[in-house]
Structure formats: structure tokens, C-alpha cells
């Protein structure tokens, strides 16, 4: 057992309100620079939708991630052979138009325009060429299902849904969507690291953060192709690739990453998970159906004396083991089995897990009842009808089974296509609701609550714990950051109070484009 520590994340999608505060927090700190304007290390997508860059999930186009080849795995669009052969021109590299051409407006024209008959306008100009452009796209162009025919209907995850199922999703009365915030997953089997010919990308042993050494990157740009999540970006100005750094300077100082700290919906959790690094290769090479299970099996119980001993033997700090025991992500992912990795089939073993959303699934299918006005239940204060979110408890899992959002779609996102896995998580989410409603509203018979909990495989105590961590968790419960022990590592002692606009820490030279 080769025990290592990984800072992992859980995003609870039921809570995301799609406000993009996280994206802005990140942009303000890290990517508000020339060449990085188009980079959104944190972005929030509407699902169904094509996302950013457009259709990033379709690896027939982008050739990202790993693919299985005679028993083992290799990079799909990069790697030793393909990477070096395509070094002069990488056929699998997205270009900036796949993301969007960054732009600003000529605001000064509003002020400096002389008196005229017409109102002055602020024309959009490209941030690359400085010339006026027609804006064609932005990083969240399809927000809230806008432009559905062009975007939502082309979502790559719809590929194995029948035309009828797809049609049903887009009927006006039944349309539903949810938000999918994404950052780099700081994978256990990162494709970006494997694809870098210069060896500029590495995973930090102590906390598993994946970083690009800006001094070693030579713009061979293979990581952009290789990362199936398209979370490694090429800075066209400096000629270096950049990616989410999980705000490591903040983490080392004990602060939560900016996106997590600022998250309005408080959907984000961060904590240490111990895992067995010896299993990485086998887990990543297994059959697609077993990928999720294999990955979850790698995550170790931080209370198990055997694990603790092996961790210590491996040099994991006691403070990190303690953080792993208090980790909110370990509880969500492993203890409660409620969070799943995004697109496990890319085989990078992502360490950002998602609690799939229940709300877009739960909405009744029966006909609309127009006379609901009089039906407000005086105690429960809910509409006693069948067209709002169906919180009725007549038939325990009815709504899940006939979800208006096909489970297959969710399964394609979060469970490598396995509907049962998503269903189980949704049942758990539902069971917690039923349990809490039994307590707070009191209109559900205790036997019914018990049945729900039993079928979801949990007890009342667990349900309460889930409820607490989901709804009431304070800052320190959501972010359990292990001390970085900066005092012990010379490299970590570099000055981090850097100024906005610079590229990294500990640089003696200015971060300017090469000659």
C-alpha cells in the first residue's frame, strides 16, 4: 500500500445557483492578464449544453484523455509517439475560436465622443488584435439554456439517448437544467502530466495539486490536447500553458481557494483524502463499467490503523492524517457514497467529485393542474398539486424512476453510463429529504421514513449528518485544509505576496513574452 494524500473537492450541484461568482473570483486573481483573458480556470456550464470550449466532452473531436489499448492505456491524442510526431503541428489542438475570442468594449468612446445627433456606442473590440469584432461567443454563451437548438441539443452526453427521450427533454413545459461548475480535477492519473514532452507538468506529492512549471514549459502544447476536461490552457501571449493551481498559495497559507471561498451557494467542499497510489495504473486501465468503483476503492479509510501506519511510513504528516479524518469530501465520497467523479471514462481518475442534482430530476410528470391556487397546505406551505417539484411521498421513488431528466443523461456525466449508480445517489438525497421532512413538517409517517432510509442504505443519524453538512455547514466544516508546513520546504518559502498581473511566485525575471 503506497499511501498518499490528495486534496480533493466535492461540488454539491443541488446548491449551485449558477451565479458565476466563483469564475469571477478566479479570473480576478489569476487570469486577468494578456493572453489569459479567454482562460476560465473555473467555469460554470449549463447542462444540457455544449460547455466551454464548445463540446469539450466529445473526445472524437478533441482526442483528450486516455483510451484502452490491448489491456493497458495510452493517451488518445498525445503521448510519446503521437506527441513527438505531431510536434510541428498538433492536429488535435483546439484553437481559440473553440473557446471564444476575448473582447472588451471601447468604453472611452462613450465619454470622448463629440456632440452628435446619435448616442455614441461602445463597440466591442477583440482583446487579441484590438480591432472591432462581432462577438460570436463567450464562455457561457448557452447560460440557462439560451440558444437551445444550437447548444443544449448538441450536448455530447445525449449521444445514447433515444430521439424520443431527447425530444421529451426539450419540451417547453418539461425543460430542466442544472449548473455544472468545473475546475481542474487534479487527477490521480493526469493526462496533462503524461502528455508534456518537456516534463513541465507535475503533481505535488504532499497534496496532489497538479502544476505547470512556467520555466520549463516550451509551448509544445500537448497538455491542451491531452486534458479531457480542457482545463489546461495555452497562453497565446507568453507562449506557456497555464492551468488551475487550486490556489496553492492560499492553501499553503490555510485559506480556501478563491472560487470555493466566494461560492455563494456554498456548494463546495475541500478536504484531504488518503489513497493507495499503487493502484492507480490498474484502476485507470479497468473496464469502463468498473472505473468508478475502482477509483472509489483506491480511497482509504483514514481511521483504519493499518492505513494510518502505512501513511506514516510513507511520510504523510500527522497533521495531514488528522485533516483526512475530518475531511468533508471523504464523508461525501466514501462514507456516504453520494459524490461521483465527472466522466470517469476519460480514465484520468479525477479528484473533484459531484453530488448529482436531484431537483431537475424530481418534477412531476402528471398533467398541469390550474386550480392550485386554493390548495396551499396550511401547515406544510406547499402546493398540494402535481406540477411543482414533486415532494409528495406517496410513492417513494416514483419521481426518480420516471424522472423528467433522463437518468441516462446523468449517468453519462457522473457514472460512466451506469444509471444504477446515479439512481442510488438520488435515492439517498431523497431519503435525507424525506427524513428531514418527517421531522420538520411531520406529515410523513415514521414507518415510511424508515423504509426510505433503509432502502437508501442509511440510518437516521447518517441522514442527519448529511443534512448538516449539506445545509448548515460552516466555513471550517466545508474546508478542512491540512497545514502545508511551509516552514519545512524551501521551495514553499518563496514570497507569495505577489502582485496582480505577474505570472508566478518566486520569479526573478519579469514574466514577458520571449524574443
Amino acid at each position, binding site marked *: 500500500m503506497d499511501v498518499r494524500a490528495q486534496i480533493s473537492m466535492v461540488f454539491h450541484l443541488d446548491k449551485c445557483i449558477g451565479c458565476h461568482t466563483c469564475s469571477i473570483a478566479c479570473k480576478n486573481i489569476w487570469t486577468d492578464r494578456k493572453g489569459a483573458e479567454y482562460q476560465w480556470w473555473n467555469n460554470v456550464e449549463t447542462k444540457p449544453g455544449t460547455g466551454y470550449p464548445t463540446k469539450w466532452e466529445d473526445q472524437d473531436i478533441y482526442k483528450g484523455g486516455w483510451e484502452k489499448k490491448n489491456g493497458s492505456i495510452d493517451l488518445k491524442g498525445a503521448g510519446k509517439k503521437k506527441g513527438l510526431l505531431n510536434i510541428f503541428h498538433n492536429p488535435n489542438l483546439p484553437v481559440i475560436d473553440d473557446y471564444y475570442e476575448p473582447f472588451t468594449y471601447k468604453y472611452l468612446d462613450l465619454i470622448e465622443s463629440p456632440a452628435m445627433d446619435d448616442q455614441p456606442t461602445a463597440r466591442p473590440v477583440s482583446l487579441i488584435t484590438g480591432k472591432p469584432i462581432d462577438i460570436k461567443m463567450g464562455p457561457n454563451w448557452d447560460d440557462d439554456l439560451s440558444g437551445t437548438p444550437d447548444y443544449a441539443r448538441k450536448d455530447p452526453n445525449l449521444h445514447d439517448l433515444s430521439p424520443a427521450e431527447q425530444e421529451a427533454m426539450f419540451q417547453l413545459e418539461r425543460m430542466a437544467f442544472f449548473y455544472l461548475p468545473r475546475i481542474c480535477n487534479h487527477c490521480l492519473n*493526469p493526462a496533462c502530466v503524461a502528455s508534456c514532452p518537456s516534463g513541465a507538468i507535475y503533481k505535488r506529492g504532499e497534496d496532489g495539486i497538479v502544476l505547470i512549471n512556467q520555466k520549463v514549459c516550451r509551448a509544445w502544447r500537448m497538455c491542451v490536447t491531452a486534458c479531457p476536461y480542457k482545463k489546461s490552457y495555452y497562453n497565446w501571449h507568453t507562449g506557456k500553458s497555464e492551468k488551475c493551481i487550486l490556489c496553492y498559495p492560499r492553501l499553503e497559507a490555510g485559506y480556501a481557494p478563491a472560487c470555493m471561498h466566494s461560492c455563494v451557494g456554498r456548494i463546495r467542499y475541500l478536504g484531504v483524502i488518503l489513497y493507495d497510489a499503487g493502484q492507480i495504473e490498474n484502476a485507470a486501465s479497468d473496464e469502463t463499467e468498473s472505473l468508478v468503483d475502482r477509483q472509489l476503492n483506491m480511497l482509504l479509510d483514514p481511521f483504519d490503523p493499518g492505513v494510518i501506519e502505512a501513511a506514516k511510513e510513507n511520510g504523510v504528516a500527522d497533521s495531514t492524517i488528522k485533516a483526512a479524518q475530518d475531511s468533508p469530501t471523504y464523508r461525501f465520497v466514501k462514507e456516504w457514497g453520494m459524490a461521483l467523479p465527472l466522466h470517469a471514462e476519460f480514465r484520468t481518475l479525477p479528484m473533484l467529485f459531484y453530488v448529482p442534482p436531484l431537483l431537475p430530476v424530481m418534477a412531476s410528470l402528471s398533467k398541469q393542474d390550474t386550480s392550485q391556487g386554493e390548495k396551499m397546505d396550511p401547515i406544510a406551505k406547499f402546493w398540494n398539486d402535481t406540477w411543482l417539484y414533486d415532494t409528495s411521498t406517496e410513492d417513494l421513488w416514483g419521481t426518480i424512476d420516471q424522472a423528467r431528466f433522463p437518468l441516462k443523461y446523468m449517468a453519462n456525466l457522473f457514472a460512466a453510463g451506469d444509471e444504477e449508480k446515479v439512481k442510488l445517489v438520488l435515492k439517498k438525497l431523497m431519503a435525507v429529504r424525506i427524513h428531514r421532512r418527517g421531522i420538520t413538517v411531520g406529515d410523513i409517517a415514521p414507518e415510511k421514513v424508515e423504509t426510505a432510509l433503509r432502502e437508501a442504505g442509511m440510518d437516521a443519524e447518517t441522514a442527519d449528518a448529511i443534512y448538516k453538512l449539506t445545509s448548515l455547514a460552516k466555513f471550517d466544516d466545508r474546508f478542512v485544509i491540512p497545514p502545508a508546513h511551509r516552514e*519545512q520546504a524551501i521551495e514553499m518559502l518563496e514570497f507569495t505576496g505577489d502582485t496582480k498581473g505577474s505570472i508566478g511566485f518566486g520569479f526573478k*525575471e519579469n514574466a514577458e513574452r520571449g524574443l
Partner: protein
Amino acid sequence: MQNFFNALNNFLLIALPYMALLVFVVGSIWRYTSTKFKFSSLSSQFLEGSQLFWGSVPFHIGILFLFFGHLTAFLIPRGVLAWNSHPARLIVLEVTAFIFAIAVLIGLVNLVYRRLTHPRISVVTSKMDYAILLLLLLQVVSGLWVAYNFRWGSSWFSSVLTPYLWSIYALQPDVSAVSALPWIVKFHIVGAYLTVLLIPFSRLVHFLVVPLDYLWRPYQQVVWYWDRKKLRKSWTPWSLQRPRNN
């Protein structure tokens, strides 16, 4: 007049190569050690991907062949002469080299055209990029000219230029044979020195860091900031390795 040409010959064929080499070595080391952030191939494929293919690929493949061709003639002139002793083989070699040079020319023209016409690419083009493109263009045109007009280059390179280059290398420069060559050949030689001279100051540095070690490196890389295992051994003297965590 004669004196002037002698001096010019001496400068271009003796002083310049030493200067170029010195600047190249010192400059590259300086560039690599102190301005690592600027050490990049500065790829512009991200801004424009399709035109680049017709420039970059023929250029690189052609230039690699020509580079190793010149290198072979420099390192094993006898081998080249032996190969050329048979006329058919000589023709094959010359024609192949010519084709690769044409590929370089096509590539360069496409690259220059792309830099000049594509607004996004102009933004990421420096003066040095134009200087290098122009220099390389002159090199390949003069090279093609020489190859076509003064046959057979691969043979007389090995017998005339190789001794000259070795004399430079041996610090006993001997330009008697070279000075008698046509001016266009000397132009090509001088162009080569200038290119070497400019390497550290341009994006050409990227060829110094061709990532061949990728071939034998393991795919995944994990970097540890310190070796905690060592710290934990009770027999490690505290004065040397103090167990500093917890």
C-alpha cells in the same frame, strides 16, 4: 581593392564564425539559465491552426533533413564522397536534398505569408521573427541557387568546405580554398554564421531543448518538496535531519 577583399574575407570567414560560436554558446547558456520564462517555441497554432500546417510541417521536415545532411558532410566527408563515387547514388542524394530544400522554401513562404496576412498572427510576431524568417529565406534560396548552378555540392562541400570548417574548429583557420569560391557560396556561409549568432536571441532556442528525453521518462511525474520518510527514521541524527513536522 585586393586588400579590402582580403580583409573582408578574413572577417567574414574567420572572425565571424568565432564570434558567432562564442555568442551562440555564451548567449544560449545565459538565456537558458537566467531567462527561462522566455525560453519557448512560442507556438502560434492556438491562434491559427490550418495555415500553419502547410508552413510548419514542410519547413521543419525539410530543415531537419538539410541540417543533418550538412552535419554528415562535416563529420564524415569521406563517407559522403564514397557514396557519391557512383553517379546514380550522387544523383539520388542531390535530388533528395533539393526536394527537401524546396519543402523548406514552400514552408517558409507559407509561414511568412501567414505572419503577414493573418491579423491575429501579426500580433504575436516580433521584429526578430521577421529577421529570422528573412534570413532563413535567403539561406534556402541561396542554397538552392548554389545546388543548381555549382554541381555537385555534396561532393565539393565534403572536399572544400569540410576542411575549412575543421580548420576553424582546430583554431587554425585556413581560408585559401574557400576564398576562391563564388560569392554566392560565401553568402550562404555567412548567412549560416548569422543564423547561429542569432539563435540565443530568437525563438530558435527551442531547437536546443528538443524534448527527446520524453521518450524514456515515465508518464507520470510526482514532485516532493521534502523527504519525510528520511525525517522519520529514529536513527537519523537530529542535528542533520530534524523531524520537523508534527
